[in-house]
Every structure is written in C-alpha cells, then in structure tokens.
C-alpha cells in the first residue's frame, strides 16, 4: 500500500521548449496577418458570403470552445465523482480548458465584422439572445476554472476543492448546452432547429475535449522526459470510446428522426446522400475516420497498451469532430432556405440553389492561429506553474492497479 505522493513540477528549460514556441509563434503570426488582412480589406477577402455567413473560422472557434468544456471533464471525474486516478490530472485539465476556450473565443472575436466593438458586446446585452448568454457563460467558465485551479494548487483553499470542481462541472454542462442551443433555436433552418442539438454538443465536447487532453498529456510527458504509465492512459482510452459511441448514438437519433419529418427530409437527404463534399465529410470524415477508425484502434486486441494506436485514435477523433462541425455549420447553411414548401423557387440572389462556400487561406490561417494560441498558453502554463505531476507512471498514478 505504499503509494507514492504526487509531486507537481514546472517543466524544465530546454531547447525543445523554445523550438516549440517558435513554431507556434509562426502560426500565431500567420493568424494575426489573416486578421489584419480581413480587417483592412473587409470580409470580401474571405470565402464567406451572404448565403454562408459563418465559415471556417466558426468551425475552428466552435471546435475549440466545445473541446474546452470537454477538456475539463478529466478533472471533473476526479473531483466530482471522486475517481482518484484522475485527480493528479485535474490541474492540466483545467489549464487546457481555459486555453482552449480563449483560443476559440479569439477566433470568434477576430472574425466579427466589427471586432473593434468588442466592448459593445461586453456591455450591451440583449438577454433574449442565446449569444449574449454565451458571453456570460464563457466568462464564468474562465473564472470558475481559474478558481478550480487555485483550489488545487494552494493548500490554504484546499477545503473548497470539491465545491469549485462541482461548480465548474455544472457550469460547463450549461455552457455546452448553450453552444448547442445557438443552433438548436434557429427556426429558420431545417437542419438546426432541434432540441437534440444541446445534448449532441455536450457529448461532442466530451469526445473532442478528451481527445485533445490525451494528445497534450502524452506529448507533455514524452517531450519533457517524464513517465506516463498505461494505467492512466488506458482509463482515458476506454473513456474516449464511450464518448465516441455517445456521439454516434445521438447523431443516429438526429438523422433518423430528420428523415421521418417531412420538413427536414430534404436537408437530411442532402447531407446524407446528395450533398457532395458534405456527404463525403459526413460518411468518410465523421463516421469512418472520425468514429469507426478510433473505435477499432481502441478495441483491437492486438493494440492494447499500444500508445501510437491511442494517439492515432485521439487524433482521428478530433478530425471527426471537425468534420462533424463543418457538416453542421457549412452544410446546414449550404442547403437553401425554404420559402415556399412544395414549390421551386429561383431568383438572381441564389434562392433555391445549394449555396457555395470555399474557405480561403486567410480563414484557415485565422483558425490555426487560434489553435496555436491555445498550445502556447498550455506550453507556457506548464513551464511557469506546477501543473504537471512529476510522474504518472503506473506505480505513482495507480499503485493498486497491479
């Protein structure tokens, strides 16, 4: 029963640290360039138009925001549900959550038509708007996650640890429900208008957030020469499978009901069968590569304890998540609005036709800039503060497992 105490330590100075920062810095610079370009010329340099108004930056932003709330889960399982093996990872989990959220929000804000009016968005609220609610939810999430980290790092406030964890966990569920509801409440668009959107986004966040966590955890340990045992990684591995399964279940429910509801049948047919790139992204990107492939990598007997297989599973889960968001966001807008049910409509303004959208390189740069910002924050975070346990070897993390 001689369990070793968990010791947290900053990561060491090293060449790798600076190389990593330099690479991420380059992406940050490209992101900034993309922002200034669109800011200077206007959004006509992007691929977005008046039919597809939310483009690739929104896919990145929502992907990061969704992953943020999911990343906090690892900590929550330790705190809220008292699973001891997860507790040492709580600090990283909350740091990652904050970083992902800020990375996502920055993309969202910089893609606004008037980013200079951020102060207006922060001070004038229309409380009927889910979007306004989300601004409050995001700020609250940042604050609660910070307090949660504080209760984990400072012995003096240790007594509030559980409370902070529960508060952060509850908040994150509301937050993701809010993100999903941004779409769920849109009566105008056949593909969105559905109560399933909120739970779907919650499960998506579980899967994407955990996948990001697995990758960050692995590389943080291998690049700093620390030990990370299979006991921890296998827990995360099977948890990931459960979440991927959850997403599949809700997606199936959503599409099957959609096919039965006459009003939604058109857009469901479009996405599932006739939508070209969206159909391919759905079946190949989300279902095959993003769900079935990771599931087989996780459950293949020969690959038990295989770290590369797990990392690939996590990476493909993220790919699948982005494909899914692209289909929901862009595919949902590409399908024309129904002005007259049962009739064909046409105009010189693209009524009745599938809307086209080709993301521009600027939008990709902006999105990747947000990802880079997230990773910079994590890299510097673990460098200056004690976020990472010195070792998560099997003997330390789970002495009872053997």
């Amino acid at each position, binding site marked *: 029963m001689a369990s070793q105490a968990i010791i947290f330590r900053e990561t060491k100075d090293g060449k790798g640290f600076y190389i990593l920062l330099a690479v991420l810095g380059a992406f940050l610079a490209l992101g900034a360039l993309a922002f200034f370009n669109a800011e200077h*010329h*206007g*959004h*006509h340099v992007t691929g*977005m*138009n*008046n*039919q597809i*108004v*939310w483009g690739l930056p929104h896919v990145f932003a929502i992907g990061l925001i969704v992953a943020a709330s999911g990343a906090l889960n690892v900590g929550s399982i330790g705190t809220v549900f008292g699973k001891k093996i997860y507790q040492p990872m709580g600090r990283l989990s909350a740091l990652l959550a904050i970083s992902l959220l800020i990375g996502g929000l920055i993309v969202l804000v910089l893609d*606004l*038509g*008037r*980013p200079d*009016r*951020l102060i*207006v*968005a922060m001070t*004038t*609220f*229309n409380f*009927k*708007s*889910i*979007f*306004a609610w989300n*601004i409050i939810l995001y700020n609250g999430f940042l604050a609660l996650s910070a307090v949660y980290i504080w209760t984990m790092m400072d012995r003096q406030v240790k007594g509030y640890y559980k409370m902070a964890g529960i508060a952060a966990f509850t908040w994150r569920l509301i937050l993701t429900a809010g993100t999903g509801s*941004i779409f769920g*409440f*849109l*009566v*105008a*668009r056949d593909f969105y208008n559905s109560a399933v959107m909120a739970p779907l986004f919650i499960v998506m966040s579980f899967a994407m957030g955990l996948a990001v966590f697995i990758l960050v955890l692995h590389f943080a340990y291998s690049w700093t020469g620390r030990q990370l045992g299979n006991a921890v990684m296998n827990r995360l591995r099977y948890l990931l499978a459960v979440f991927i399964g959850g997403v599949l279940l809700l997606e199936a429910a959503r599409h099957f009901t959609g096919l039965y509801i006459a009003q939604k049948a058109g857009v469901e047919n479009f996405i599932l069968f006739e939508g070209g790139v969206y159909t391919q992204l759905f079946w190949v990107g989300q279902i095959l590569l993003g769900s079935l492939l990771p599931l087989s990598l996780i459950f293949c007997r020969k690959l038990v304890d295989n770290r590369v297989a797990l990392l690939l599973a996590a990476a493909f889960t993220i790919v699948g998540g982005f494909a899914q968001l692209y289909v929901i966001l862009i595919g949902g*807008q590409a399908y024309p*609005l*129904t*002005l*007259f*049910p*049962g*009739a*064909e*409509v*046409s*105009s*010189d*303004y*693209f*009524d009745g036709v599938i*809307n*086209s959208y080709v993301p521009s390189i600027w939008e990709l740069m902006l999105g990747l800039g947000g990802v880079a910002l997230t990773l910079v924050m994590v890299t510097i975070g673990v460098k200056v503060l004690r976020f990472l346990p010195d070792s998560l070897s099997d003997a330390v993390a789970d002495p009872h497992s053997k």
Partner: protein
Amino acid sequence: MNQNRVDEYRRNFMTALGGVAAVAAVAPSFVLQTAHAAGEVAAKPADQAVTDAKRWGMLIDVTKLTDGGAAMVAACKKEHGWGDEIHSDATQKAHWARVVKVTDKLTQNSFSLPVMCQHCENPPCVDVCPTGASMKRADGIVQVNKHTCIGCRYCMMACPYKARSFVHEHLIDQKAHSPRGIGTVESCNMCVHRVDNGQLPACVEAAPDAVTFGDLNDPNSTLSQTLKAIGGKQIRADLGLNTGVRYHGI
C-alpha cells in the same frame, strides 16, 4: 363558404375598392399624390418618440405586378445605394430586396414576388442579436442600429427570409439618409427616413397600383380595409412570425 358569407365578402371588397377610389379622387388636392393613392402616412414630428399606436405594414398584390416586383427592387436599390460594392462578388454583394420566382412542383402554377425584410412582429433576428442592435421599433419597423452591430451575423442565421446582408467592404458614396458600414449587417428598413417624414417607402412609390402601405393597427386604414376585403398571405406563415408585409395572389 355559404351565400351569406360570399355576399359579405363581396360587400367588404366593394367598400374597400370604394375607399381606394375615393382617396384617389381627392388625392390631386394633396402634394403627395401617389403617396396617398397607395396608403396613408402622416409625418412624425422629429421631437416625438415612436409609439406603438401604429404598426406599419404593406400589402403587395402580386397579380398586379407586371414585372414581378423588379421596379420595386430597383427603387429600393436606388434609394439606399446597396448592391454596387466593387470588391464583393455576386454572393457577397448586399441585397435588401429581390424578385423570387415560385413554381408549384405539382401544378406548375408560377408567379413572382418581391421579397425583402418582412418586418416580423416576433422577429427571430431581434431575438438572437446579442447586443440589441437588431431592433423592432414600436411602430413595427425592424432595422439594425449600425453603431452597436458587431457583425456577428447571427441575425442572418436566424432570418427565415434571407432578408439580411453583411457589408463585405469599405463603402464610398453613401446616401446621407441611409448610412451603411463595413462589417455590419443591414436590411430593408421600410424606408424609415421617408415614413417618419410622411412619405411612402421608395418601393411602394414604384408600384402604386400594386402595393398598399399603411397602419395595420388602424382598422379603418386603406391597408386594413383592403386586407380585410381581399386577404393577404404571409410567406412561411407556419413560423408564426406575424409579418408586416403581406401578399395577395400567392
């Protein structure tokens, strides 16, 4: 419909027609002749707040639009100066109003109508706007406050009529009465600058025989009377938005 109802219907229709004819007959004595042929608008003194006493609306009789509404759209474009953006491509250019051709898949019956902001009583665009920049005036006119719009485009996602546009570039040569701006969203504002002045919206003026403009709250207005007599449908009435723009003949 039994015979009594038909008679009643016919009576109402004739009364309404009579009303329109009467207004047309006395109109020459007014300065705003065409304005009064198509509806009544009283100037709103600038120092008076907008109240909910009125609800502005219009009835577009599609059967009387020989061009499907093209002249109305052109008048709107001229009045507000949208759609001439230099750098934006066709999908990115602003569009406040457009002519939509509708063909029933089963019967092949076909007609055209102009579609612009429908000035919904329960506007989804206003509900979702985080800053309150999308707003509905007490008199039912829905518009965007260009100073508080952050360009999030959520209202565009929410509008069932594709009535809103985002300005994709810097604009030059703007109309003083219709300020527009890069990075913000805009849409038909029922020519609020004209209506407050006692004039008719530009599109209504461009099709005086087909469009009636006026106060939906006043049961005696020509608009209300005509609507009562000949009826007016909403596009996507199923959404329950109670639009201020109604169509006859769709």
